[in-house]
C-alpha cells in the first residue's frame, strides 16, 4: 500500500498547489474590478474618504504580494468578506446556499447516470444500426441545446401547456424543506440532468465499445458466459470505473449548469445567490462564491481521483 499512500500524498500536494493558484486568480479578479477592491467592497455608496480609510485599514495601499498574503490570511480564517446588498457575511450566505446546490447537483447527476448508462450501453450494443444513429443524433442534439433553452421548453411544456408541475423551485430554508416539495424539484433536476446525459451516454457508448474489443471478453465467452452476463459482469463494470474520473472532470460543467438552472427556476442555491449578486454588482459575494466553487471543484476532483484509484485494482495495488 506504500504506492497508494504515495499516490495520495502526491495528489493532495497537487491539489494544494492548484488551490493556491485558484486563490491567485480570484485575487487578480478582485483587482480588475472597476475602482479597485475598495469600490467593489464598499459598494457604490462609498465616499472617497471612506475608500482611502478602507484602503489604508485593509492594507490595499501596500505592495501586491503583501496584499495577497493578507488576503490569503483572511481566507484561511474564513473571512470571505461581507455582502453589502444582503448585509451578511459571505460565509454565512454560502453556508445556507451551498448544501442546496449540492443537493441539486447530486440529484441530477444520479438521474443522469441512471439514464445515460443504459442508453450508452444500448447504443454500443446496437452499434451501426438505425437505433444507434438515432440515439447518437439525439444525444448530440441534447448536447447542442443550451440548458436555459431546455429549461424554457420544460417550463412551457409542463408548467404552461400542461400545467402539471410548478415552474418555480421550492423556496425552503433547509434541505428538508426542499425535499418536502418534490414536485417543485422535478423540473430543475430533470433540466440539469438532461444537460449531462448527452456527455455521459457518449462516454458510455465508446467505453463499452472499447471494452467489447478487449480480449478478456473473448476469454469470458470461451468460458461459456452469455452475452448478457458478459455485459453485466465484465464489460459494464470495467466501463463504469473510469466514470468516476469523468465525474471529477465534469464538476466545473456541473456547477456551471447549476448556475443556469438555479437562475432559471429561482432555486435558492449558490448559483442563484451568485446570479443575483451579479445583477446587483455585489462583488464580495461574486468573488466569494467564485472562490468557493473553485475550491469545491478542486476538492471534488481530488475525491473522484481517489475513488477511481480505489475502484481500479490496477492502481490500488501496485505491487
Amino acid at each position: 500500500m506504500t504506492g497508494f499512500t504515495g499516490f495520495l500524498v502526491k495528489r493532495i500536494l497537487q491539489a494544494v498547489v492548484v488551490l493556491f493558484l485558484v486563490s491567485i486568480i480570484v485575487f487578480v479578479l478582485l483587482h480588475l474590478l472597476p475602482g479597485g477592491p475598495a469600490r467593489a467592497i464598499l459598494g457604490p455608496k462609498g465616499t472617497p474618504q471612506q475608500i482611502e480609510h478602507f484602503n489604508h485599514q485593509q492594507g490595499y495601499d501596500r505592495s501586491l504580494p503583501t496584499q495577497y498574503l493578507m488576503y490569503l490570511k483572511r481566507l484561511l480564517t474564513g473571512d470571505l468578506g461581507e455582502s453589502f446588498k444582503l448585509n451578511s457575511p459571505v460565509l454565512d450566505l454560502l453556508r445556507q446556499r451551498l448544501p442546496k446546490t449540492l443537493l441539486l447537483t447530486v440529484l441530477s447527476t444520479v438521474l443522469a447516470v441512471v439514464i445515460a448508462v443504459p442508453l450508452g450501453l444500448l447504443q454500443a450494443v446496437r452499434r451501426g444500426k438505425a437505433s444507434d444513429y438515432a440515439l447518437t443524433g439525439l444525444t448530440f442534439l441534447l448536447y447542442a441545446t443550451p440548458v436555459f433553452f431546455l429549461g424554457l421548453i420544460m417550463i412551457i411544456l409542463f408548467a404552461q401547456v400542461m400545467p402539471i408541475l410548478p415552474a418555480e423551485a421550492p423556496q425552503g430554508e433547509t434541505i428538508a424543506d426542499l425535499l418536502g416539495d418534490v414536485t417543485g424539484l422535478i423540473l430543475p433536476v430533470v433540466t440539469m440532468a438532461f444537460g449531462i446525459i448527452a456527455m455521459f451516454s457518449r462516454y458510455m457508448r465508446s467505453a463499452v465499445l472499447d471494452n467489447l474489443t478487449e480480449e478478456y471478453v473473448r476469454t469470458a465467452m470461451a468460458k461459456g458466459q452469455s452475452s448478457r452476463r458478459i455485459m453485466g459482469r465484465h464489460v459494464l463494470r470495467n466501463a463504469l470505473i473510469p466514470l468516476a474520473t469523468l465525474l471529477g472532470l465534469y464538476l466545473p460543467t456541473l456547477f456551471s449548469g447549476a448556475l443556469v438552472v438555479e437562475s432559471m427556476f429561482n432555486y435558492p442555491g449558490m448559483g442563484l445567490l451568485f446570479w443575483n449578486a451579479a445583477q446587483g454588482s455585489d462583488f464580495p459575494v461574486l468573488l466569494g462564491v467564485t472562490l468557493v466553487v473553485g475550491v469545491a471543484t478542486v476538492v471534488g476532483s481530488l475525491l473522484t481521483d481517489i475513488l477511481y484509484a480505489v475502484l481500479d485494482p490496477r492502481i490500488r495495488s501496485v505491487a
Partner: protein
Amino acid sequence: MTADNTTDKTGPHGEGPLLTIEDLRVDIASRERTVHALDGVSLSLAPGEALGIVGESGSGKTMTALSVLGLLPPGGEITGGRVLFDGRDLAAAPAPVLQDVRGDTIGMVFQDPLTSLNPTMTIGAQVAEPLLLHRPGIGRKEAWSRAEEMLRLVGMPQPAERMKVYPHQLSGGMRQRVAIAMALVCEPKLLIADEPTTALDVTTQHQILELVDDLRSRLGMALILVTHDLGVIAHRVDRVAVMYAGKVAEQASVRDLFERPRHRYTEALFSALPERAAAGAELHTIPGLPPGLVTRPTGCRFAPRCAFATDECRAGEPPLTDAGEPSAEHRFACFHPVPDEAASDEDVVRPAPALPAAAPGDVLLELDALVKEFPLKGGAFARSRGTVSAVGGVSLTIRRGETFGMVGESGCGKTTLGRIVAGLEEPTAGAVRFEGADPSRMSRAERRAHRRRVQLMFQDSTAAMDPRMRVGEILREPLVIQGVGDRTEQEERVAGLLDAVGLPRGAVHRYPHEFSGGQRQRLGLARALTLSPDLVVADEPVSALDVSVQAQILNLMRELQRERGLTYLFISHDLAVVRHLADTVGVMYLGRLVEAGPAEQVYARPLHPYTRGLLDTVNLPVVAAEGTAKPGPSPLKGETPSAARPPSGCRFRTRCPLAQDVCATTEPEVSTPNGGAHQVACHFPSASPRLASSV
C-alpha cells in the same frame, strides 16, 4: 498419449472421433472487403489426441481454432461446413448450446495472458467462474476451493494467496498458468491452445508447454495446439496439420511430417528455418507473400510462390489425398509432391557455405563497464521509487565487419544496450568508444556527424516510420538532416537503396502501412543504410516476421553486409537466428553479460550455466529419434527476478543449479577457461561440451 497408438485411434474404424471439422468455410467481413479466411478445412481429432495446427500468419490456423467454439472476431461468420463435437454440430448450434460447451467440455487458452484476463477481477473469481456457470450444484465456496486446487495443479506457488490478487500483479508466465487453470477447471475433453507461449520467454515457454503436456496426460483430454513455431509443434503433439492460405496443405503424424514432408510448401517452410541451414550459409526463402484471400485464388494457392508449379497447379486446385502413402494418415494437397523416396535430412546437399565474413578487422566499438539505470516509476504514481538496473556493467568489443549477436530473454537489458550504442540513451556510467572516441565527449558538431556512422534498425518498422510520410520522404530524411547532396542526388540514392533491398522504385510514392511486415523491414534496413553507416544496431529485426519472410530479411542483411562491409550488433531472443547470422555471440542475463565468444564455441561449449540452460530449453524443429525421450523438464526453473532488486553477487544465482555461497557474496570475474576470446562470468564455468544439436 504417445505417438504410437494414435494412428488406430483416429482411423475410421477406431472409436469415433471427438471432433470432426468438415469442409469449414469462414468469411471475415470488414468495412472495406470480405476475406475468405477459411475455405474448406477438414480435420478430425480422436479423444485424448494432440493435434498441432501450424501455419504462417493469415493461414487460417487461429480462425480454425476460434470457429470450433464460435468465437470468431466481429464480422466473422461460418458460411459453410460442420464442426461436429460429441455428436453435435457446433457450427449450426444456437448460442445456448455453444455456451454449454464453452469452458465446460472444451477449454480455450489464448495468446496474450495479460489482455485475455479481466484486469479488474481477482484471479480466484476468474478461475472459479466456469464452475459457477457449468456446475449449478456447486456452491460459491466449493467453486472457490476447486479453483484454488486447480491453481495448485498448474504450478502456481501459494495458490491460496494468489486467488485474491489481480492479473497485473503476476508475471506473464504466471498469468498464462491462470489462463490454463481457467480453461481446465471444468476438466474439459478438449483444450484448444492458440499460440499459448508466443508472448512468453523461452524458458517460461518451456515450462508452460511442459505443464500442458503433463495436464493432458493426467486429465486424459485432447489438445489442439495452434502455433507458428515448428519447434513447439515437434515435441508436443501426435499429429500435425499444416495450413496455408485458408486451407489444409498437409496433415500427417508429427514424425512423418518432419521426416518426410510431401507438400512443396511444407518442404519450403522447413528449409527456411535457420536451424536447418548451415551456419554462414544463405537461407532458403520462399519468394513472395501468401495470397490476400479477398478473391478465391484459382488453382493451388501456393503455386505463385512454388518452384515446381506447372500449368496444372495454376488451373486446378489439388485435392487433399493420401496419394499412395502407406498410412492413410498422411494426406497432402499437391500435384507435384516431394518424391517419397527422398533422402533423409543428413544427405541434404547444402549450398556451398558463403564466404566467411571478411577476416575480423580492427576494433570498431568498445563498451567499457557500461551501466544504465532507470528511475523506477510505479504505474500511475509518477513518484520515483528506486532504480531499475537495466544494464549492470557490460564490457565488450565489436570488430569491424563482424556480426555480434546479443541474446537474452526479455528484460535482460539487450535492447537498452543497443539503444545506448545507437546513441538514443546516455549511459549512467561507463563508456562507449567508437574507434577509440567517446561520443559523449564529442562536440555538438562532431556528435552530429558521428550519428551517420551508427544506425538503428527497429523491431517494429511500423512504429519507427512516420505514418504521414511517404516512403520517399522517410528514406530521404536522414540525408536531409545531415545535409547530404541536393534533392536529385538524394532521390538517386534512395532509388539505389530500394534496388539494394529489393523493393520497386515506385515504393517512394506510398505510405509505410501499405507494405507487408517483411517489406517494411526492408524499408527499415534501407533507411538504416541511407547514411552509409559503419555499424548497424538491429534490435529484433525479424522477430515479428513469419519464417519464410524472416529468411528473406536475414539473407538480405547478410548480403548487404558483404557488399558494404557493415558491422552488425544483432539483438535477438531467438538463439537459432543469432546462431545463423552471428560471428560472435554475447549472452545477457538481468543486465549482465554472462558469456561472450565466437558463435561456434559458445553454442558448442557453453561455459555459463545460463547459456547452457537456454540452449537446452530451445524447442528444435526436429522430432526425437524413435524411443528417445521427449525433451526433459526445463533446466531453468523459476523466473527472472526483478531488475529493481537484482540479486547480490552473481545475478543468475537464484536460478542456477550450481549456485554456492560464494555466488551470493562475490561477483564473478570474467575468465576464459576455453582459451581465446571465449569469456564467461561465472564462479563455476562448465567444461564439458554440449551434446550435438543444430542450435
